[in-house]
C-alpha cells in the first residue's frame, strides 16, 4: 500500500531508528485530558500518537438487572468499542468477538486495583470508545479508563498504566504503530502495570519470541508504564488545579 507523504519523508529521515523516527524506548507523543464527558461521573481522553480514545465512568450505582448483583462487591462492567470510521475499512457498529475479549481483559485488569468490595450490590461502568486507531488501542483505552475512574472518585488501591511493547524490524521497541505491527517479524505484547506495586495485570501476546526477548520486552514495558503513569498524574492534577478540588489519588 502506498504511504502517505508525511510518512514517506519521515522514513527517509536518515539515522532514524524506527519508521517514524523514534528511538526504541520512545513513546509516541502522548496527550491526556481528564473530564471530557460532562454527564459522566468521570472521564478522560488519551492520545498515543494517532491512536485516540475516550473513556467515561458511571457509578457506583445499584446493579441492574438486579439478579446479576453481587452481594459482596460491585460488578465492574467494561465496554471497549471502535467507532466505524476509526479504522481503514469501516467496522460494523456494535461489539464483535475481538472487542468482547478486549473488554474482558481490561475489566480483569482493572478489577485488581478498584476497591469493588466497598460497593456491594452496585455496578461501576467503564465505557471506552476508540475514535482513531493506529495500534495500541486497548492499552490506550485501559490508560484512559484508569484516569476516568480516578476522575470519578472511585476508590482505587493504585493507578494502572498500559503500553504495548514488542519487536519490529529486528528491534525490541515500545508503543508500536500499526506500521510496526505489520512488520514481518512483529511481536505485540500489550502490558498493563499498577503504579505502586508494579504488578502486571494485563498481558497478552501475538507473534513468536524467545523467553529472553520476553524478558527484555517486560523490562521496557515497565519503564514505559512509569512514564505513562507520570503523565496520568499530571493530567489529574491539571484538572483538579483548574477546579480547585482536592487531589484524590489513592496511591499517593
Amino acid at each position: 500500500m502506498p504511504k502517505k507523504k508525511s510518512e514517506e519523508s519521515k522514513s527517509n529521515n536518515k539515522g532514524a531508528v524506527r519508521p517514524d523516527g523514534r528511538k526504541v524506548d520512545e513513546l509516541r507523543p502522548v496527550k491526556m485530558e481528564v473530564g471530557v464527558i460532562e454527564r459522566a461521573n468521570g472521564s478522560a481522553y488519551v492520545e498515543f500518537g494517532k491512536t485516540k480514545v475516550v473513556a467515561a465512568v458511571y457509578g457506583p450505582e445499584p446493579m441492574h438487572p438486579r439478579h446479576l448483583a453481587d452481594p459482596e462487591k460491585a460488578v465492574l462492567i467494561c465496554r471497549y468499542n471502535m467507532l466505524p470510521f476509526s479504522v481503514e475499512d469501516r467496522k460494523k457498529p456494535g461489539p464483535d468477538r475481538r472487542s468482547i475479549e478486549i473488554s474482558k481483559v481490561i475489566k480483569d485488569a482493572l478489577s485488581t486495583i478498584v476497591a469493588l468490595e466497598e460497593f456491594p450490590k452496585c455496578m461501576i461502568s467503564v465505557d471506552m470508545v476508540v475514535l482513531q486507531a493506529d495500534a495500541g488501542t486497548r492499552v490506550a483505552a485501559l490508560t484512559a479508563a484508569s484516569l476516568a475512574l480516578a476522575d470519578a472518585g472511585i476508590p482505587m488501591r493504585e493507578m494502572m498504566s498500559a503500553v504495548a511493547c514488542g519487536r519490529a524490524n529486528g528491534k525490541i521497541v515500545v508503543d508500536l504503530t500499526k506500521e510496526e505491527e505489520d512488520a514481518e517479524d512483529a511481536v505485540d505484547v500489550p502490558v498493563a502495570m499498577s503504579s505502586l506495586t508494579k504488578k502486571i495485570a494485563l498481558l497478552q501476546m501475538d507473534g513468536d519470541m524467545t523467553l529472553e526477548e520476553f524478558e527484555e520486552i517486560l523490562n521496557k514495558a515497565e519503564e514505559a508504564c512509569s512514564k505513562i503513569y507520570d503523565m496520568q498524574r499530571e493530567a489529574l492534577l491539571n484538572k483538579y488545579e483548574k477546579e480547585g478540588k482536592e487531589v484524590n489519588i489513592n496511591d499517593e
Partner: protein
Amino acid sequence: MMSSKLTAEYVRSLIERGKRLDGRKLDEFREIKINYGVSEKAEGSAEVMIGNTRVVAGVKMDIGEPYPDMPNKGVLVTSAEFLAMAAPEFEPGLPGENAIELARVVDRGVRESGAIDLEKLCLVEGEKVWVVFLDIFVLNHDGNLIDAAGIAAIAALLNAKLPKITEDYEIVRDELTDPLPIKDIPIPITIRKYGEHLLLDTTALEEDVLTGKFTVTTKINGNICAMQLSDGMSMTKDEVLQAARMARDAATKIREKLFKDKLKELKKA
C-alpha cells in the same frame, strides 16, 4: 437527566416570562463549535459541540451496488448511536427507537436536500457506485441532539474526500483525491414548546421538563426538505407554520456562521 419537581417548575416559570436558566432567549442557540478531521482514518469526520452536547460524525466510502431503481446513483447509509457514556439514562446495546429516529431524520435531511450529488458517485451504471457510510455518535448529551447530529453530519460530508481507486475498482484507502461532491447544506432545527412558547436549542434539563419536539430541516434556498414531529407533542396549524419559519431563520444564521465559505461557493454556482 432527572430534574426535581422544583427545578421543573422553575424552568417552566422562567419560560413563561420568556427566559431560560442559562440566560439565553427562547430562540437563542448556545455556542456551536466544530472540529474537523477527528479521525484521520475516516474519509471525512467532524465533532460538533453545542454547549456541552458533543456529537461526532464520520464518513467511510466503499464501492457497492446501486439500488435497482436508481442504477446511476451512489448510495447513502446513515446510522446513529447514543453511546452509553453520553448520559446515565442511555443503555448500551443496539440503537433504540430514539437513535433510529435521529438517524432517519438526519438521513432524510441530507437525502431530500440533494446535499450529496449522488449521480457523481456512480462508477459503472447499474453495477458499481460509491456507498457513503455516515455514522453518527453522541458522546455527551446535553440536549438538542438532532440539530447537533445534523450539523455534524453535513460537516463530516463537507470534510470528506473520495479515496483513489485503481482501474479494477479497488480502493486505495490512504490516497484521497477529490472532495465528496456537495450541493447543499441542510440544517435541521428542533423546536420545543411550553404553552404557546416555542424554544430552540434546548438543554437536557429543559428537555426533561418539556414534552415533544418538532424538527424542520431547511435548504440554502429556505425550502423545507424534512420534518418530524414526535415524542408526544401536538401543535395547531399556526404553531407548525410559525415553527417552520423559526427553523428556516435559525438555519440560515447557523449556515452563515459555520459554513460561510462553502455557502458562498454554492450560491455562486
